[in-house]
């Protein structure tokens, strides 16, 4: 299933987890639980040692995954092994994509990711201006390249991104790095208005913790919601408390269901 298709019928729920957090095996279970809970696509983080765009929650997830031995090759193995029927998006930093394999640039990794079953990329330290080589590689192997639109993104930069984006656009609902907050920002509507004419689905992220948040975001016009920290928190808590993989997986599935139902509740009544 293509990324865009994941948003086709109803408001999409796109969860994020760092692959390999807190272990390869548990992480497989957790990703599968999210799919069972209603995920329409999954952003699967490939951990990088210097995650400058993340909040502390996800930063710590990345540290756990790295400490547990996650590498780009293991990640691809993970992608091949995980049993879900929704599209997987690789979220990582550019240096890992850039260094992989023999190629000078991102081509080797894109090729390998495509072979493993990745449908697209989100690269938070790669603005549209620097994205040419990755865009070209994605085109070559039929993958999408998702960009993040921030509340501060304006003018010409919106145009540049609009030209390059595919799959969906990640709408950053408020300023700041990733992290769950109680308040759903007022930025959402304004952000969506600025990209109303884009012909890709608009997924809104940053700060969504509950079904209620999800509902309000969708009601404000989003085609989908992206949730990371609220889910990573469940993984972290389970890890710290020594809960079994099954228990944590159940919690993730339940949370996923809550968020997906919230998103559905916010959907406009069909005409």
């Amino acid at each position, binding site marked *: 299933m293509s990324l865009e298709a994941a948003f086709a019928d109803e408001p999409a729920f796109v969860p994020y987890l760092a692959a390999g957090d807190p272990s390869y095996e548990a992480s497989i279970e957790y990703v599968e639980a999210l799919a069972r809970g209603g995920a329409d696509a999954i952003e699967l983080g490939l951990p*990088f*040692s*210097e*995650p*400058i*765009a*993340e*909040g*502390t929650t996800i*930063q*710590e997830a990345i*540290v756990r995954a*790295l400490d547990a031995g996650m*590498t*780009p*090759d293991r990640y691809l193995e993970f992608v091949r092994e995980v049993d879900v029927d929704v599209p997987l998006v690789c979220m990582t*930093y*550019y*240096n*890992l994509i*850039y*260094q*992989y394999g023999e190629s000078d640039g991102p081509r080797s990794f894109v090729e390998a990711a495509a072979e493993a079953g990745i449908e697209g990329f989100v690269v*938070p*330290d*790669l*603005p549209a*201006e*620097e994205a040419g080589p990755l865009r070209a590689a994605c085109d070559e192997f039929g993958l999408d390249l998702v*960009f*993040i*639109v*921030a*509340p*501060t*993104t*304006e003018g010409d*930069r919106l145009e540049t991104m609009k030209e390059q984006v595919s799959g969906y656009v990640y709408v*950053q609902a408020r*300023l*700041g*790095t990733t992290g769950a907050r109680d308040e759903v920002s007022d930025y959402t509507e304004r952000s969506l208005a600025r990209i109303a004419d884009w012909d890709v689905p608009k997924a809104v992220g940053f700060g969504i913790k509950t079904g209620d948040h999800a509902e309000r975001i969708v009601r404000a016009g989003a085609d989908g919601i992206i949730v990371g920290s609220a889910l990573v928190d469940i993984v972290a808590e389970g890890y710290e408390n020594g809960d079994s993989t099954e228990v944590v997986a159940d919690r993730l599935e339940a949370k996923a269901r809550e968020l997906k139902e919230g998103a559905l509740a916010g959907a406009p009544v069909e005409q």
Partner: protein
Amino acid sequence: SKFGEYGGQYVPEALMPAIEELTDAYERYVLDNEDGFMDEFRERMADFGGRPLPLQRADQLSQRYDTEVYLKREDLLHGGAHKLNNALGQVLLAKYMGKERIIAETGAGQHGTATAMAAAHLDMPCEIYMGETDIARQRPNVFRMRTNGAEVNPVTTGRGTLKEAISETMRDWARTVENTHYVIGSVVGPHPFPSMVRDFQALISEEAREQIQEKTSDLPDSVLACAGGGSNTMGMFHNFVEDETVDLYAVEAGGSSLSVDEEEGVAPNSASLSTGEEGVLHGARTKLLQDSDGQIMESHSVSAGLDYAGVGPELAHLVDEGRVEPVNVDDDTALEAFHRLSQDEGIIPALETAHAFGYLEEHHDGLGETVIVNVSGRGDKDLETVIEETGNRDLDNAPDMSIFREIGGGML
């Protein structure tokens, strides 16, 4: 915004507008001297910073090496190192841009103290992020920052060192970008930082180039500067880059060994120009210490200030072009050079700086008749480390401190 293939702007989208705003401000105020910005910068660097700083002939070293050795005395800059050139420049620029708040990260504490000083001088609220481990290791610098009125925010994630502090500062900036300027401490990070920091630091070579011609009626044969992130290096080289007869040596920290431990992700050195591979870190494409996957290695040097896995993209480019020679010396050589300059010239150098003098000791024969070495900072801050590290080694010229350890309490 590029130096060959290096440089660029690899930052989160939320920061791009700030980067663009800064680029615009850089071009207008720094490059075009709009509203007399550069005039005010130069005036403040004179009155507050103490510029111009001397280019001093090193009598004893000149005799030792049968070479005319000149010292560019950045150790005499207010705060004790070249760092203020950049910190004051950026805080002043933030003021011109209408920003109301300054943030910065610091590892060894030198950039933090310089930024805190500049912010106090210009009456700007200032917060410094610093890893908890670094806070414990660099307490005097923490107290200096606090004394200058800066908030110091301990970063408790990860190992509590520079990399976590950088992430935390980025996070702050991503939230507060509209009213806050992030003062990056070296010629690293996304454009325009590498160019802008270089331009502020270029006062060093602007003065030195004029001074050496006054003193010797000629250009030097070689210019040496230590290189971590590379801000003193680029500051010292910039005005000599066009002088093709002047050889430029960037002296990196060879640490205990140039080899790396991929398994542990540790490089026991900070020689990214000498041994690093191209990659993307902290907003720029440059040479990095990384493993074959592209994960960043933990670097190491006896000098905390050189201890960084990346390096300024312009330096990486100048190395590829063959214009700058990347060299390095190990911890022992740097420590010996620290003692040599202290004893022979009456100047206690920063451990960073000592690396440049270590290279001079080992390779003075190949450097020509006239050499300038940038004394990038003073070494008061490093005394404790030097005493400890010297005690663990068998160095020829280390002073005996044993009886003073017995008198009184702790190390310092």
